[in-house]
């Protein structure tokens, strides 16, 4: 069935399929044209579907299209159904527009790579899967997209698979995500068990209705709580939250456009999208919401702290992404779904911009990413620097820039939320305070990054310095567009308190749009709003100030002094609090040991020795026995053939022999029944001679007959059985005694 919405994910998927099959045959210009057109076309279709159908998309619960029923088994019916409502529509726009820009950027960035077609094939695959994820209207379809983006993420992290470290980074991402996917599946099953459906609208309807999902399930908690927790485990895997965040920094092994598109702007936000999509389920379980919020806030703070001491450009940005995703989860976890999605929206622009700037800088620095060896790039890379400045101020939360509005929406929501019951009322303010500290940290480490890379004298060696140049237009153009996004995207979500200054009332455009999909925006008191805005602006400026104090124009005296005073703390932070080592000790090594043991016991001994050995022995003996018959002597073959044939003839044509003869005598009435094998019975003719005079008294095809004797005596019944096909005949006799 034709479906316009289906075209949105289908076009990039077709592009991916074509490029994988035939990409090697085409020149680079053909490859890039196909890839970009595929994504751009789905961008245009998304724009058309979203804005032309705006009233339907925003206010009437979205456009929903049933492509076909995928499978139905008993009461389960899984449809390939797609829905574009304001939430998925917004995600579609972000994915396709930023996807198109980053495809464009990749032309310049990947220009010298051998596997040009493979790269673009994977990028298209990613876009298709991500669009399927956001458009899917049933959980299985969403899950296919979820796994599809995981797959393409794995493929792209390990894109330069010849380096062992890159390949193992890909595996780490995949395996970590698998732990999360397990949670996703459990959550899905719980929802299915409670509601009997996998369709998202049905589940959300059941959640609004309440009763099915509020039933207690385990430990006194409701189905909604456990489903929420397990879905959040999936979200934490995909969106790199504690404890599953460890894969994302390593994922920077992939090409930079990949980091920008998949590991900053789109795929990693899928978890936030999932929680927002399931908002009605979460609203039933404040405790699950609290877990989401607390995990998000702690991740935001923890990752920001790690960001303080990282020296690799992309790693700083990776931890920054983890931290910002934590902000988003803190947002959706405080039931501020519109705020979380708003931050997702602005973050997509400024983080993609930051990553593409990183790519541009590394392009200029001959592939180096070590910020201790940079500095003074401000004058050499004018465009990149301007864009970085905008994105930097945006992520720090300086007013006017988009990050300011979205971060403010999260902070205000955390302090103003009323989603929790009385027992959990402390969660909101606590989350708010943690987020404020994390925001201060964000401003500091991003300023450190900015000053170390762009200000002061250059610390690179002569040869690298000589090569520094601004990137080609194909790379600068997407940067500029993203910078514009980072600058203006925030105006879609200006809080009501600020809108009043400009004579407008009510909620922001974005909040109004999102209302049918994720519920009414949080009403935050204007006073709270103003206080939060003041504090967060002050913290942003303080953070930037600290950054300048330590790193303005390169490493300054305070930075050195701090590192000298607390060397162990600095080392601990630089080693990312050694979480990877802890995981290695408590999870990876025991698991590897277990694998080795099972390998030795099960594989080597059980399978190789015992199972394989036994059957090898049987086959060997059987083979020897058969070889004896197969002597190659024609006459012996013929003898065996003749014996076999004789046996067959005997089986088919041997005279019928009844297994049993049953005689029932009641008074003078005798009944004789022959029991023979049923396969032959239809062809047999029976003759019964009851009185022994040699003349058949009864005959026919039935194997039984009756006779009434004249008086008590001992009689002999002779039964003749004839086989009409073979003209065989057998006579059996049986004595019958008729008692007086």
């Amino acid at each position, binding site marked *: 069935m034709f479906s316009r919405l289906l075209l949105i994910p289908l076009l990039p998927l077709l592009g991916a399929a074509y490029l994988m099959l035939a990409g090697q045959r085409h020149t680079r210009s053909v490859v890039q044209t196909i890839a970009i057109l595929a994504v751009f076309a789905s961008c245009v279709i998304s724009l058309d579907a979203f804005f032309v159908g705006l009233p339907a998309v925003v206010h009437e619960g979205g456009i929903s299209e049933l492509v076909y029923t995928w499978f139905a088994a008993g009461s389960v019916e899984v449809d390939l159904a797609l829905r574009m409502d304001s939430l998925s529509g917004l995600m579609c726009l972000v994915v396709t527009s930023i996807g198109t820009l980053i495809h464009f950027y990749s032309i310049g960035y990947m220009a010298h790579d051998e596997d040009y077609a493979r790269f673009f094939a994977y990028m298209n695959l990613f876009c298709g899967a991500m669009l399927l994820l956001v458009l899917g209207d049933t959980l299985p379809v969403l899950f296919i997209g979820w796994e599809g983006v995981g797959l393409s993420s794995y493929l792209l992290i390990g894109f330069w698979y010849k380096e062992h470290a890159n390949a193992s980074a890909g595996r780490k991402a995949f395996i970590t995500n698998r732990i999360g996917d397990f949670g996703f599946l459990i959550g899905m099953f719980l929802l299915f068990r409670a509601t009997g459906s996998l369709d998202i609208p049905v589940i959300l309807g059941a959640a609004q209705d309440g009763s099915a999902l509020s039933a207690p399930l385990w430990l006194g908690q409701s189905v909604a709580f456990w489903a929420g927790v397990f879905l959040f485990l999936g979200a934490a895997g995909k969106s790199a939250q504690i404890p599953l965040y460890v894969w994302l920094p390593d994922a920077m092994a992939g090409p930079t456009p990949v980091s920008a598109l998949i590991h900053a702007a789109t795929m990693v936000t899928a978890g936030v999208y999932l929680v927002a999509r399931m908002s009605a389920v979460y609203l039933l379980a404040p405790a699950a919401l609290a877990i989401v919020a607390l995990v998000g806030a702690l991740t935001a703070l923890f990752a920001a702290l790690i960001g303080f001491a990282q020296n690799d450009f992309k790693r700083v940005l990776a931890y920054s992404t983890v931290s910002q995703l934590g902000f988003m989860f803190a947002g959706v976890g405080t039931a501020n779904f519109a705020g979380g999605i708003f931050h997702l929206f602005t973050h997509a622009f400024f983080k993609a911009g930051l990553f593409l700037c990183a790519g541009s800088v590394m392009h200029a620095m001959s592939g180096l990413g070590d910020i201790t060896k940079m500095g003074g790039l401000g004058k050499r890379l004018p465009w990149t620097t301007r864009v970085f400045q905008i994105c930097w101020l945006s992520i720090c939360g300086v007013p006017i820039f988009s990050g300011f509005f979205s971060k403010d929406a999260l902070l205000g929501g955390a302090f103003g939320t009323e989603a929790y019951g009385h027992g959990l009322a402390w969660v909101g303010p606590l989350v708010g305070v943690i987020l404020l500290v994390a925001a201060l940290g964000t401003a500091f480490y991003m300023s450190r990054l900015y000053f170390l890379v762009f200000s002061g004298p250059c610390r690179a060696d002569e040869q690298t310095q000589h090569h520094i140049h601004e990137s080609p237009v194909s790379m600068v153009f997407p940067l500029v567009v993203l910078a514009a996004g980072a600058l203006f995207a925030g105006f879609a979500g200006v809080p009501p308190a600020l809108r009043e200054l400009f004579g407008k009332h009510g909620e922001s455009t974005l909040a109004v749009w999102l209302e049918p999909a994720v519920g009414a925006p949080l009403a935050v008191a204007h006073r709270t709003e103003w206080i939060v805005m003041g504090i967060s602006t002050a913290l942003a400026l303080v953070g930037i100030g600290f950054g300048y104090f330590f790193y303005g124009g390169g490493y300054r005296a305070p930075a050195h002094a701090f590192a000298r005073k607390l060397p162990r703390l600095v080392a601990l932070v630089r080693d990312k609090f050694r979480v990877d080592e802890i995981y290695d000790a408590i999870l990876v090594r025991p698991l590897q040991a277990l694998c080795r043991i099972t390998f030795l016991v099960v594989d080597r001994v059980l399978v190789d020795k015992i199972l394989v050995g036994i059957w090898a022995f049987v086959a060997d003996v059987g083979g020897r026995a058969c070889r004896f018959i*197969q002597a*190659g*002597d024609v*006459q012996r073959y013929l003898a065996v053939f*003749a014996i076999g044939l004789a046996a067959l003839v005997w089986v088919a044509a041997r005279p019928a022999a009844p297994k049993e003869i049953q005689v029932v005598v009641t008074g003078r009435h005798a009944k004789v029944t022959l029991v023979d094998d049923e396969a032959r019975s239809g062809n047999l003719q029976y003759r019964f001679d009851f009185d022994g005079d040699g003349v058949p008294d009864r005959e026919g095809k039935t194997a039984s007959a009756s006779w009434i004797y004249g008086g008590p005596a001992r009689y002999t019944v002779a039964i003749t059985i004839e086989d009409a096909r073979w003209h065989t005949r057998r006579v059996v006799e049986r004595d019958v005694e008729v008692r007086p």
Partner: protein
Amino acid sequence: MPGYLYILVSLALFFIGMTGVLLRRNALFVLMSVELQLGAGSLALLAFARGLGDQKGHVVAFFVMALAAAEAAVGLAIVVSVYRARKKIDLDGVNQLRN
């Protein structure tokens, strides 16, 4: 002459032929025994055909004759080539395809 005698003769011929095929060592005798078996089959066909008044048996007997001629030609050709390769026509050693 009653019909069943033909069948008895045919059976006797067939088993004599079979004994020859299974036991003779010389390939020529084996071929001749095969001819004997074919003759036995033809005789049975003819006897039944006459007994049942059905002409199809006669037709098949003619086919068997033609087939026997062809078989003898191919068989003798094989025997000749076996002889060329081995300088004798004993079937005992002709087992290169075993195992």
